[in-house]
């Protein structure tokens, strides 16, 4: 019995040690490497790389793209969650499956589909060219690709929560004469606000960090159609490693802020692991 227990303790200790080893070597070390590489020659060169006009332009573009894509997906996500959880209709499951579809589509394909629609040889390409409207290799293409990739985040965070909360509160409000907007703003929204915020945060993090999809539609015009992740790639391919890692470190900071904010939100709302 005694040796049993000792063996058991040994097994548990080694499991903890192994898990910590995986966490440090496999998960944390890459993050550390980004900051170490960025500061390899000290702080000034790193800051210089971030203050470079092309880098500033890429930061501005990234913020602009996210500022359009995130609200679009927030409105759509809330509408979809309301529709799916507050009503019964045939095809609800299919609707949810279609909403989650972009998660299982390669980022490159998420960019490719827009080129097939709006590229020079795309379905609407000639029509757009006649009217001198540019979508691919321009801001609208970047926005569309980002919207596609971040499409499921808000809906997916809200649907399980709203399903669990049921409809009785909203039905009571409606029976008492509240309008649809009143019901949503005063009854539903207070219950879902933390989850909504968490979904918006994840959506935003992905929107700002997306690489594959925007890389296909961007055209990589320096200072014009390069978002931050694309700027990182260009610098890296030009062997400007400190610059590449400096901008990458900025993106890594964004990821850390997102994780921190999400942890705070989870403590507020008591919900667990909605990251998927």
């Amino acid at each position, binding site marked *: 019995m005694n040796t049993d227990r000792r063996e*058991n303790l040994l*097994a*548990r200790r080694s499991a*903890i040690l192994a*898990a*910590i080893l995986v*966490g440090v070597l*496999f*998960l944390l*070390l*890459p*993050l550390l*490497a*980004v900051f170490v*590489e960025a500061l390899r020659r000290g702080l000034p060169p790193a800051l210089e790389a971030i203050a470079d006009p092309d880098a500033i332009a890429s930061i501005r573009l990234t913020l602009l793209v996210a500022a359009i894509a995130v609200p679009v997906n927030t409105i*759509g996500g809330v*509408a*979809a969650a*309301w*529709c799916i959880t*507050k*009503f019964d*209709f045939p095809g609800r499951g299919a*609707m949810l499956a279609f909403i989650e579809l*972009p998660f*299982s589509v*390669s*980022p*490159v*394909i998420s960019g*490719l*589909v*827009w080129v*097939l*629609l709006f590229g*020079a*040889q*795309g379905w609407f390409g000639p029509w757009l060219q006649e009217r001198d409207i540019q979508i691919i290799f321009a801001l609208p293409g970047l926005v569309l690709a980002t*919207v596609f990739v971040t*499409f499921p985040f808000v809906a997916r965070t809200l649907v399980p929560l709203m399903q669990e909360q049921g*409809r009785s509160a*909203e039905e009571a409000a*409606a029976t008492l004469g509240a*309008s*649809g907007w009143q*019901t949503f703003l005063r009854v539903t929204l207070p219950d879902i606000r933390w989850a909504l915020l968490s979904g918006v945060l994840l959506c935003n*993090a992905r929107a700002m*960090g997306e*690489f*594959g999809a925007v*890389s*296909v539609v961007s055209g990589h015009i320096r200072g014009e159609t390069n978002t931050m*992740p694309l700027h*990182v790639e260009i610098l890296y391919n030009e062997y400007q490693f400190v610059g*590449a890692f400096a901008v*990458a470190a900025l*993106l890594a900071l*964004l*990821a850390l802020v997102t994780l921190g904010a999400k942890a705070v939100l989870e403590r507020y709302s008591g919900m667990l692991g909605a*990251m998927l």
Partner: protein
Amino acid sequence: MMAAASTVFIAPPVEREKPTGAARGRWFGLRRGPLPGFGLTFGLTLLWLGLIVLLPLAALALRPWTLGIEGVFRSLSEPRVLAALRLSFVSALLAAALNVPLGLLLAWVLVRERFPGRRLLDAAVDLPFALPTAVAGLALTALYAPNGWLGAPLAALGWQVAYTPWGIGIAMMFVGLPFIVRSVEPVLRDFPRDAEEVAATLGATAAQTMWRVVLPALRPALLAGFTMAFARAVGEYGSIIFIAGNRPMVSEIAPLLIVIRLEQFDYAGASAVGLAMLVLAFAILLALNLLQRRAG
């Protein structure tokens, strides 16, 4: 009795229509609950789904056939395409499979043990979700390059990771690991410890308890995590292209081939590879889902 009767009385029958405006509760002749907003939200969701997801995917599904059926198969049977598809799918399956024991270990320790640094480890698990893929790609390349922190000792052992298919596997494991951990964790948290104690009391060794009692209960969650990790890895691009080396026939993944064909303005060829990837991935996801249903 009274209480039960009165609740039955108060609870409104869901199917009953409100007297105010029969139109509100009706949509295509179907009756709904008393809540407003079905038309608006249903319409908005359909519009959003149609324009953002379905129309673009329809373009992908139709474009390759402008080559003709034979042309599509010729375009897909080029050795370089076949090699890229095989590399992407085999590596993604292997990476997801290797992630299963790692993810199980992390989930187990996070749920069952208390130790200093546990919260940090918990947060670290979400890192691959939150870190932009290009950043992950750069970081992994720096680490596993022949002169990197991990690459140098591995190279001394004669194992080159970066710029080989091994690097692709490492990147795929990095992006897939959280899916396994996060899908196993809740099931493990709810798993009754009594079951293990009973098994131990009945004379089962720790290994037998793990193999015969705990693992069967976790199988559906492990399979779900495996499925998500695979789906993520097979289409992954940003974290792979920096570390892969991208040599045709050796370390060139299928998504990169799509990018290369697009750069040559070969839209149909690019979408043929894209469609093949989607069809293959969905076939595997469907099979895994069926397996999951049987396991559950």
